């Protein structure tokens, strides 16, 4: 289970950490399972506490044209672009 989830999360886990991590995660998940006692039939899931609808604004450019600022903290850039490892052979 851990190696599958780690792959989804894009985090490399060393082989020897897989088993201890599996135990820690199972302990947390089995503690969480007490939620099964709660009757939630006909309860609407709550995603936001405010009850406000998200505000809308006109779909126009409000900032930008600052490529230097955008890439300022990137580990590798060229001419205002992010550089990533080659993905197409």
């Amino acid at each position, binding site marked *: 289970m851990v190696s599958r989830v780690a792959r*989804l999360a894009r985090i490399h886990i060393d082989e020897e950490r897989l088993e201890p991590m599996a135990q820690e995660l199972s302990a*947390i998940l089995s503690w969480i399972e*007490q939620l099964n006692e709660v009757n939630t039939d006909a309860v609407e899931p709550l995603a*936001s*506490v*405010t009850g406000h609808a*998200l505000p809308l604004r006109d779909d126009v450019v409000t900032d930008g044209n600052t490529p230097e*600022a955008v890439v300022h*903290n990137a580990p590798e850039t060229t001419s205002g672009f992010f550089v990533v490892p080659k993905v197409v052979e």
Partner: protein
Amino acid sequence: MTDLLTMTAVEARAALDDKSISAVELTEAYLGAAQATEALNAYTEITHDKARDMAKASDARLAKGEGGALEGLPIGVKDLFCTEGVETTACSNILNGYKPVYESTVTQNLWTDGAVMLGKLNCDEFAMGSANETSARGKVSSPWTVDGDGQDYAPGGSSGGSAASVAARSSLMATGTDTGGSIRQPAAFCGVVGIKPTYGRCSRRGIVAFASSLDQAGPIARTVEDSALMLQSMVSHDLGDSTSVAEPMPDLMGQINDGIKGLKVGIPSEYTMDGMADEITAQWQEGRKWLEDAGATCVEVSLPHTKYALPTYYIVAPAEASSNLARYDGVRYGARVEGGSLDEMYANTRAAGFGEEVTRRILIGTYVLSAGYYDAYYIKAQKTRRLIQNDFIEVFKEVDLLLTPATPSAAFPLGQKDVDPVTMYLNDVFTVPASLAGVPAMSVPSGLASNGLPLGLQLIAPSFREDTLVKAGRVVEKAAGFAAIASRAAGV
């Protein structure tokens, strides 16, 4: 110098106005105190030059009679807030070297009102922790000690550096953030005041995201008045945060000493747990008496889903964290660790950059959101969250305020072995419910445990009733008469 450090923010602000002290003197005193208490590791960076420049500018504004509400008051900033040009890492190695090109809305509000930035304060990595032990910048020691045992105690977390520095007098006030108790629990452990305002009061723009439906900024300060003064400046309606609210903030300082005559206070019977120390219960009963003596009526109330708050939180918060932290991919910020492919580069970068607790929570979050488990865990938790919020909505039809203990125990020694994650999570058992419901809450120091460490009481108000919160907080503060000073505070 010691006199400067013992003033409250309200006193210092008045002294700046009547010119008995200058902003530069006050700032120098705090920079000296930050240096003198370096062993606590509360600061990740002290921004000396910036502090001095800002203090000079404050003195110039004060001389012209143009001082803002926080003019010249030296404030420390939790390392979760983006500060323009000043390294901001959320105390994670994955953000090493990250210098934001913009300022968070909350810190900008403070500077606009004249506050002086002292530096960045240590916290748990991405605010995930209850002892400030998960920080990539090292543990923070509480300035409080227990006579004769020679141990370092946890300042609480995640805003551990913030609470420790306010208690150690190395900052006059500090910003914190609270996702499940990260302001209130460290404030209680360090004998200072902490407020988590209503969700949406403080803009999240420029705060490194942990769990966006829960994250709220708030003040940590020495007195209830100081925390109210600072909170008033922190809040704003910000179009840069889609969940920022437009509800006007009541004038807190104008009514903070109005008292609570006629207020109805609920004492929730579920806020207790197995093995909770008798002195926590005794403190809680004393708090009830203080409120009654001030003219409030206290009644027993029930919030029946309280025991499910913590497991609900440990689904919702990691789920949101796993999504928020997906952005740390070695492309846009911080460090990169190369790999044979793009996917390997991501996996190696994230393995090197995230600490253990953060990794654990990302994995839990990824699991509960993954195909086949989403309904059983994530939707279930969102439904339980609604029941928890309904508990608060129902109880606030009967009462104006709730009184509970802030934490189930006083601070524990740092570096305890064999503490499993779930045991650590239980620290937040009394603070998490208000976070899930989005309602404002504060912790106020109320006394000392038998070993001499601080204890705190928690007040919880209905949404947008920070005014009730600070009025009641002021009553508790006056009745408690908490005057103890941490043994490792500057100038002690």
